[in-house]
């Protein structure tokens, strides 16, 4: 792993970002988590167990698909897809929950909690909760519960308790705050499975490590198929867990251009987007120092995106660092453009992508046109869009009903 990685593991910071800015009641739990994880990741049995579940439960390695028809339609670079949508539960989130539930088990915890936006992390947590027979509670904003009802039902079917959060904007930010409060109360028997590369140290490192399987596999698969590396790698960024996982496979390959795509919402006005890199400034949210969308007084401005999973006013601290160092370029794509890309991928490739991923597709489309036919773009298809079909149908006013 690169220089950034060594720094983060030593200090809990990525450049100036990261750290541990959590309420004092959580401090010891974070220290325990850090020390357990540090030991486990060198432990052969743990690695073997993780590998077992990756292969036999998640279904890894996920395929690398050449998107022949998209390549033709977009008329430029070749398009390749890393198929995290084909994982068990339908998204990359399970890579992290499997890893974290094994840590929770090692710490002797009997209860797991999570926050969720689009519900994919909630489903992945409910899944490992059932699999490892742990009491599971998932916090989800009321607005997201409306948008992603199907996922709430899936969680409940697997035995999880889904708690609606009505405070604030009733979205991911508020679900995260509520999960932190639950953890503060029940820290003795509960592990909080943070779902993105956010939160106080060591969460951003742990989530990145478990998600880096995406990038490491992709690099091998691409190299094997093409005898070279892709020219460009693209992933969508909310908190940024699929992106950090994908980028980590290529971070040392300086010739590979990395792009993170955030949600541009419906305008650049505060409250109508989730484009943290473009509009955020350094601040402190949910236990970490990172870029945050905030007003002149340091109050957090509500985020917006058509995709519940990108609807977050902060970003993982390691992404903030990559943005500052320039290693990764960040762009944003608006709601309508993402919806268009969503339908385009459905029709052209026969794949219903998550609305989150649709942002990455749209950015790829524009970039592909500027690139040569012998160049390659690899997109992280972070999850499938079954959860989004009702919302898309609603937004496109009955076109599909």
């Amino acid at each position, binding site marked *: 792993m690169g220089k950034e990685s060594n720094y983060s593991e030593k200090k809990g910071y990525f450049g100036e970002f990261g750290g*541990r800015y*959590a309420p004092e009641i959580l401090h010891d739990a974070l220290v325990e988590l850090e020390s357990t994880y540090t030991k486990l990741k060198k432990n052969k049995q743990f690695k073997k167990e993780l590998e077992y579940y990756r292969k036999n439960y998640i279904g890894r390695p996920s395929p690398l698909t050449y998107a022949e028809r998209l390549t033709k339609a977009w008329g430029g670079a070749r398009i390749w897809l890393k198929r995290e949508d084909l994982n068990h539960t339908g998204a990359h989130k399970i890579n992290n929950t499997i890893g974290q539930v094994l840590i929770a088990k090692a710490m002797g915890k009997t209860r797991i909690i999570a926050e969720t936006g689009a519900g994919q992390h909630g489903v992945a947590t409910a899944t490992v909760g059932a699999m490892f027979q742990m009491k599971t509670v998932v916090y989800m904003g009321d607005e997201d519960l409306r948008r992603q009802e199907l996922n709430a039902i899936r969680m409940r079917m697997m035995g999880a308790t889904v708690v609606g959060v009505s405070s604030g904007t009733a979205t991911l930010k*508020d679900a995260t705050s509520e999960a932190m*409060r639950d953890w503060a109360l029940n*820290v003795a028997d509960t592990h909080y499975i943070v779902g993105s590369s956010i939160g106080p140290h060591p969460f951003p490192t742990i989530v990145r490590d478990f998600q880096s399987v995406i990038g490491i596999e992709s690099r091998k698969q691409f190299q094997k198929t093409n005898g070279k590396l892709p020219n460009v790698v693209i992933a969508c960024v909310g908190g940024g867990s699929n992106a950090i996982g994908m980028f980590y496979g290529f971070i040392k390959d300086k010739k590979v251009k990395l792009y993170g795509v955030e949600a541009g919402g419906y305008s650049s006005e505060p409250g109508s987007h989730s484009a943290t890199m473009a509009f955020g400034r350094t601040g402190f949210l949910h236990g970490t120092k990172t870029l945050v969308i*905030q*007003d002149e007084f*340091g109050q*957090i401005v509500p985020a917006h995106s058509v995709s519940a999973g990108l609807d977050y006013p902060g970003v993982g601290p390691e992404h903030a660092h990559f943005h500052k160092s320039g290693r990764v370029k960040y762009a944003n794509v608006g709601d309508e453009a993402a919806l268009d890309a969503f339908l385009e991928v459905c029709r052209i490739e026969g794949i219903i992508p998550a609305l989150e991923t649709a942002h990455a597709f749209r950015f790829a489309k524009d970039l592909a046109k500027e690139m040569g036919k012998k160049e390659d773009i690899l997109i992280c298809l972070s999850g499938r869009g079954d959860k989004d079909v009702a919302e898309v149908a609603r937004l496109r006013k009955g076109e599909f009903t």
Partner: protein
Amino acid sequence: MSAISSAFSSEKSVFIPYISLGDPNYESCVTWADALIKGGAGILELGIPFTDPVADGPVIQKAFKRALAHPFSMKKILEITAEIHRLHPEIPLVYLTYFNPLYSMGLDTFAEIAKNSGIQGLIIPDLPYDTPEAEEFFTQLEKRKIDFIHLVTPATTEERIQSMKSLATGFIYYVTSYGVTGERRALSEGLEDRIKMVRKKVALPVCAGFGISTVDQAKEISTYADGVIIGSAIQKIIEENGNNSELCAKKLFEYASGIRSSMR
């Protein structure tokens, strides 16, 4: 001796009530503060509203939401603080706030204006002492003789309490139970021993807060704690009566008097 230290100079345990500034409006908060001080507050804690108060329970979350329904202004916060200070210059005022609004303003600027408004101490639940920013902030506060008050919880190790000593002044805010702010029926076991241990380690007064609401609880805790902090129970009175200023002030005064008279 700082104003906060002198508040602990008698044999009495200090009553420290809390209010969220701006709930339901800024002007009313002067009335609430006045009632609580007249009722027996020895130090007053003032909450600066924040959109994402992760260490607070539903009562204070709702108070912040009501406060933030008006356009938020740090200038207004500081003006109201100065007004309370002008009315009761003998009562130390302490801010309880999250770090982002202070960082956003600039630590040096904030410390300077807070001092001029009469603030004598700061409590920041999401700024642990072992961060680069806490160290920097401590220097800014020390210059202006503002106390940096740290939280210790039932989960905090003795080693960590010891290390906190170099950056802690004023008093220690001892969190009586796991979780966030709000009323609870039972207090954690071994509270008295923990408080004595913290006092010995840090050599500062130790005040207990989180989950204290009744006269009986305040009476018991005051026998061994240097102060008793009550937030949510007071904020609840404001939530229920805040729109009737006179009635609310009366209820706050009665509640504060009841608590104060039960305490050592």
